[in-house]
């Protein structure tokens, strides 16, 4: 270790040179040249940055590394869809789509940097998905200030639709409150006097879902008799499960992410003197979560869904599922089409394609208006009966879900698709 010795002084000039070189390297492209372009004709004055008659550039930010990197599979499904459209359909409305993916490692400051890079450096037309509630919260002030569409963000928080100050940002998947409403609706008809025990993850996701459930059962005979929370960093939820089993609840609502979901399912199976109706939320309802617990231990567990599960045999002959599996094999040969996140990516990319095509003006403003003007848009990868609907005051594209129950080694859809909008009225803040 050296301090302020002669060597340091001699190296000073060289160090400064390194710093200067770094500055100069970064300084291509001066200030003031925004690079933004504008439309003429009917859509005069609207932004056409990142879009021409032949090309369309989109950018997405996902955790490709770090603790949430499982979600890094989503862009693979999206890439497969866009490549399919580019090579076999002549592009999106004749435009070849370029989808730039950046990694934020699930860290909000990194997400801010990457979003700014995509907007200012890559000059993308729109941000197509940022993943995670914290990362999206950190970036949406910026995207709305710059008037860049932030389409179909991959998080189920209810704030994307409930907020009115950010017209450029919109969610996609059913928000957690809608999901909670689906379970409440079921209990109201099937078990009107249910006593519910809840295990939930102590963050925005858990609280959104639990809060939505509490609101949805208000005024009914259903009551919550026990609540236990856990941290994402906890090693196990078994102590919480033991506490819950002491209650006399006859329904158990399992609000967890995959790892803890399977722990809770296993613990429930082990506690033989407590046999509630087990409801596990959609996030943890993947077959890959249930298999290690043993299918014989999780029979008749309830959950809900909105898009087609690639491992579900009932979609084996479904036209869209066949197309999806074939194109995944062709364009993403290293990715397993049975991973639900890939199907999720495919579905959301298809939703984007339909929203973009519907836009009157192929401009950023046009896309912004189009994403809040969806009228019963069919997306074949979603369950039959689940469609996208939005309006000026409704920023929730998908608010319908269907219950499903585990029978044998697969989920079986139960009853009809539940449109929570109809059942409970519109969601407001």
């Amino acid at each position: 270790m050296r301090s302020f010795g002669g060597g340091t002084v001699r190296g000073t000039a060289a160090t400064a040179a390194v710093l200067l070189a770094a500055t100069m390297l970064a300084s291509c492209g001066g200030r003031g040249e925004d690079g933004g372009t504008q439309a003429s004709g009917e859509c005069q004055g609207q932004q056409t940055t990142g879009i021409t008659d032949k090309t369309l550039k989109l950018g997405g930010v996902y955790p490709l590394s770090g603790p949430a990197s499982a979600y890094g599979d989503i862009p693979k499904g999206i890439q497969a869809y866009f490549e399919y459209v580019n090579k076999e359909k002549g592009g999106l409305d004749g435009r070849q789509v370029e989808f730039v993916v950046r990694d934020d490692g699930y860290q909000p400051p990194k997400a801010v940097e990457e979003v700014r890079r995509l907007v200012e450096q890559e000059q993308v037309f729109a941000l197509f998905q940022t993943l995670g509630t914290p990362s999206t919260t950190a970036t949406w002030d910026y995207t709305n200030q710059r008037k860049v569409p932030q389409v179909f963000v991959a998080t189920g928080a209810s704030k994307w639709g409930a907020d009115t100050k950010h017209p450029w940002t919109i969610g996609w998947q059913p928000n957690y409150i809608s999901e909670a409403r689906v379970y409440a609706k079921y209990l109201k008809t099937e078990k009107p006097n249910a006593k519910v025990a809840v295990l939930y993850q102590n963050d925005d996701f858990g609280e959104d879902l639990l809060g939505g459930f509490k609101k949805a059962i208000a005024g009914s005979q259903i009551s919550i008799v026990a609540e236990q929370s856990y941290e994402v960093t906890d090693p196990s939820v078994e102590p919480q499960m033991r506490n819950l089993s002491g209650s006399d609840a006859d329904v158990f609502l399992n609000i967890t992410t995959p790892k803890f979901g399977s722990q809770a399912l296993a613990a429930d199976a082990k506690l033989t003197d407590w046999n509630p109706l087990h409801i596990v939320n959609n996030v943890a309802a993947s077959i890959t979560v249930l298999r290690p617990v043993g299918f014989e231990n999780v029979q008749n567990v309830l959950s809900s869904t909105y898009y087609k599960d690639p491992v579900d045999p009932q979609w084996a002959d479904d036209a869209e599922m066949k197309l999806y599996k074939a194109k995944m094999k062709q364009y993403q040969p290293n990715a397993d089409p049975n991973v639900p996140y890939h199907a999720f990516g495919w579905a959301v990319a298809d939703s984007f394609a339909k929203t973009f095509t519907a836009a009157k003006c192929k401009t950023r403003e046009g896309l912004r208006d189009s994403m809040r003007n969806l009228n019963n848009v069919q997306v074949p990868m979603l369950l039959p009966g689940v469609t996208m609907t939005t309006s000026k005051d409704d920023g929730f594209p998908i608010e319908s879900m269907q219950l499903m129950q585990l029978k044998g080694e697969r989920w079986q859809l139960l009853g009809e698709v539940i449109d929570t909008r109809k059942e409970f009225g519109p969601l407001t803040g």
Partner: protein
Amino acid sequence: MSEKTKVELEKTASDDETPAPPVESDERAPEGRGSVVGRLIGLVRSRPQLVAVVVLLVVALYVPFQLVPFRVFQFTMVMVYAVALLGLNLLVGHGGQISLGHGAFYAVGAYAAAIMMFHWDVPYPLTLPAAAVAAFVIGLALGVPATRLRGLYLALVTLAIAVFLVPLLKRFESVTGGSMGLSLEKPQPPAWTGLAEDQWLYLMVLAVTIVAFAGTYSMLRSRVGRALHSVRDNETAAEVMGVRPASYKRLAFAWSAMFAGVAGCLHTWTFAFVSPDSFTVNLSIMLLAGIVVGGLGSSWGPLLGGLFVMFVPSLSQDNNKAAPGMIFGLLIIAVMYVAPTGLAGLAGRAAQALNRKG
């Protein structure tokens, strides 16, 4: 004594005398005498450190008016990291201790500023001293183990602080905003300046950075700096000289935490958003990697380290989408192998090599 050796002796004596006035460059470049260029060259030769600092300052002032907002933002973050690394350099490079938990102090500063702005509507300039004090006090308290532990044990204790912080921030939701974090208003430039938001932020961060660098520079040259070095190099000898190792170690820890807290406050200004996921253990490890790569104990180390922390992860992502972490790790290993004294040391060696050739 033979004639030959006598001659040789005389020769060596005269050799010793020839380079006697090396700093007076006018002697060497008589053709430049009086001209501006000649004087400049003279200045560079006699005070390279000063000239480099001045040139760097000029460039730093030029940057926000020339680059696109995204680049201005990146360089703002380089300076924010540099301030945090300045503190870590004080502790690791000059104090000879180790901290794997500096991300925690960074978070303390960031949250202190955010909570004040969010709950009490404190004007943002006032959050800076408050964040510094908060981090200093917490650093002083947590500095107690630093006086008793060393090496691996201290590393573990500080790592525990960083690990423990994220779940702690998720609790106390009414204050910290829980895992959703706190969204704030961005500092707006006063109207009379005519500056854009990113330029104003950059210039404020630049001002804080300059003060921080000047502060540590003068501190390290004072009695305190010498005491720190003596504790680092030989504790027993330091004690014999009348330096109290325990109090200096604790103070080094607290100062170091204070700089991290100041950086955290600047972070809050820059992003106008804090959440627990922004300050994971990863941040602490990145900071330590940054200062080691930048150059421990060198005055340029924090700045080079800041550049490293800011730019290398995204550069490695450009090169390899699948495994950016791997490229990043390999780069750290490569730098450590080629330049064990960090980038600052490498720059020094390169300069020496050039001198020898020329």
